[in-house]
């Protein structure tokens, strides 16, 4: 980190609690707009409940359309948060400090959006989702069928959601003590006092906070790997659909999730610089570092994409070739495929090669938006063309036109995540205060010859 700005603890408190102790001008208007979008989606959901799933574009044989695409997309986004936070903590990467909290919170809200997209909306009758997960008739002794991936999914996602929420909570304890000490209202002081459980900042508490960060990171990482593997198995264990029954699906989905997720974290970083003006803390060096990481992640994802595709057509089996032809050369999928591959890889990655792009907040924001457009389409292209083809277990071909009802509900999940992040930022700091302060005290400058080089002390 070459462009460090040294701040005192008091300045850090003022800077990072500006959104909690005060309300930025834009905040209320933005939350109101997002609430409107969310409520419109909720209205569309109510309409669907009333009229039935016939109001969507879903029909035989394409029963998995926008909702499932959106489910997998949000599960993917949720992966970056913990992945970035956990791996960077474990490797003690200095540039992690301002990024971890926002990434972890993004994980939590993305997971709730994913739960909204699949179990709540996709099933059409959400109360029926409970029948997969919970025993519904003790008298008959009928229990959930654990051989079904629809049981694995809630088990994995709920484990991940619980773990991520606890991860965020533990790291929030010292920061809630800072808010307790700064809050002016009696109620606010009391509530934050209860939430931080009487934190005082003893060496023992700090030691455990440090160990907790490492230990929880190590424990969350295997869960993170399992979640997207299990989501991929929703598809991969299905032998009846060409293009899905592939052994590479689990790692391919994981790396795809990291690609879209790290991009989403970059978008959040840019928004933190623009909206909260935290440019003294989020420096161009941070964008440079995550840009380098993105090149590696994107290229690894591209390798998996090529391998998945190559081995699918290598056998020259007629159904597989026909599916790929539909996916890549047939309208309308050909247009979607071109947009997907350009926006997910061929546009952003060459741009990230340039240091000027990596250190430019605007460039990083728009290139990572581009990645997420592409990655949303990637999931769509995995599900819809595969189902559109007639298979031995299906009796008809079909096509899919998403209805406005589905589009509104998809938009609602985006509004939900953005609104959730904004509401969180009003109550808790989006950048870990104690982590930034620690970064300031362990930083120094070393004189080597005539050069003064920034150094960071590490235990």
């Amino acid at each position: 980190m070459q462009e460090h700005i040294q701040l005192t603890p008091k300045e850090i408190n003022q800077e990072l609690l500006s959104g909690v102790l005060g309300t930025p001008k834009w905040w209320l208007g933005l939350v109101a707009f997002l609430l409107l979008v969310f409520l419109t989606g909720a209205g569309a959901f109510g309409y669907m409940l009333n009229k039935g799933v016939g109001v969507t574009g879903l029909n035989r044989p394409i029963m998995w359309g926008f909702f499932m695409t959106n489910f997998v997309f949000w599960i993917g986004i949720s992966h970056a948060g913990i992945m970035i936070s956990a791996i960077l903590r474990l490797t003690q990467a200095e540039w992690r400090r301002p990024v971890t909290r926002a990434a972890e919170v993004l994980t939590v809200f993305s997971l709730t959006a994913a739960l909204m997209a699949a179990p709540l909306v996709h099933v059409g009758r959400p109360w029926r989702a409970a029948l997969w997960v919970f025993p519904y008739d003790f008298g008959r002794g009928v229990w959930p069928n654990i051989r079904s991936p629809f049981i694995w999914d809630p088990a994995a996602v709920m484990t991940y959601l619980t773990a991520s929420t606890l991860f965020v909570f533990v790291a929030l304890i010292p920061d809630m003590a800072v808010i307790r000490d700064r809050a002016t209202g009696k109620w606010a002081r009391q509530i934050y006092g209860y939430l931080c459980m009487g934190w005082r900042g003893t060496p023992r508490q700090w030691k455990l906070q440090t160990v907790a960060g490492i230990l929880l990171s190590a424990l969350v990482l295997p869960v993170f790997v399992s979640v997207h593997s299990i989501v991929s198995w929703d598809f991969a264990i299905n032998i009846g659909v060409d293009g899905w029954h592939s052994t590479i699906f689990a790692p391919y989905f994981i790396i795809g999730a990291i690609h879209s997720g790290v991009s989403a974290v970059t978008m959040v970083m840019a928004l933190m610089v623009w909206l909260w003006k935290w440019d003294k803390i989020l420096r161009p060096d941070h964008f440079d570092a995550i840009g380098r990481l993105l090149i590696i992640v994107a290229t690894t994802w591209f390798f998996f994409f090529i391998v998945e595709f190559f081995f699918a057509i290598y056998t020259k089996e007629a159904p597989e070739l026909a599916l790929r032809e539909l996916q890549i050369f047939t309208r309308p999928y050909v247009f979607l495929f071109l947009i997907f591959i350009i926006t997910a890889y061929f546009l952003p990655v060459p741009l990230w090669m340039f240091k000027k792009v990596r250190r430019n907040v605007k460039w990083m924001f728009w290139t990572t938006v581009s990645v997420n457009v592409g990655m949303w389409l990637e999931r769509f292209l995995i599900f819809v063309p595969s189902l559109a083809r007639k298979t031995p277990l299906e009796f008809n071909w079909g096509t899919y036109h998403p209805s406005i009802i589905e589009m509104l509900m998809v938009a609602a999940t985006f509004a939900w995540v953005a609104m959730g992040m904004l509401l969180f930022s009003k109550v808790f700091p989006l950048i870990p205060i104690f982590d930034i302060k620690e970064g300031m005290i362990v930083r120094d400058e070393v004189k080597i010859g005539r050069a003064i080089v920034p150094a960071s002390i590490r235990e």
Partner: protein
Amino acid sequence: MALRSVLGLFTDENVVADAMDSLRAAGYTSSEYELLTGVPYPEGTFGEEEPVHKLYRWPLVGAACGFIVGLVLTTGTQLAYPLVTGGKPILGIPPMAIIIYEGTMLGAIVFTVIGIIFESRLPRLFMGAYDPRITEGYIGVTVTAEEDRMGQAERVLREAGAEDITRGWETPR
């Protein structure tokens, strides 16, 4: 007798380390004085003892509990309604392993978080002597003892260079 505490506020790390030496010299044991900081300083910055904890046991116990719950849930529920589907065994190891794995990890994580809170000695019902300036960069040294030893502790802290002194109660009056 109700326990009282006194807090001295400092700004310089070296002065704090000297104050800790002075408290030791005055006969206060390590269980009677404590450092309060708003930042995690590197261990030993103030010459304090390294805190000992048993946090690493918690995830192991949690993982064992989660594993058992996962195993009981997967075997028990399937045996309760033994419906053969597609000629597959009632207790299929691959699907059971998935649920047991998630149970094990969930148990480990939940127990770790409980362990963090417990080992951090939280929740703390009485704040004792505390000052909000600690989260603004000041370093606090607090001494907890009987009422009659408060005067001496206050004197030691002041002589060591404390910029401000406050008193508090550790137990209900």
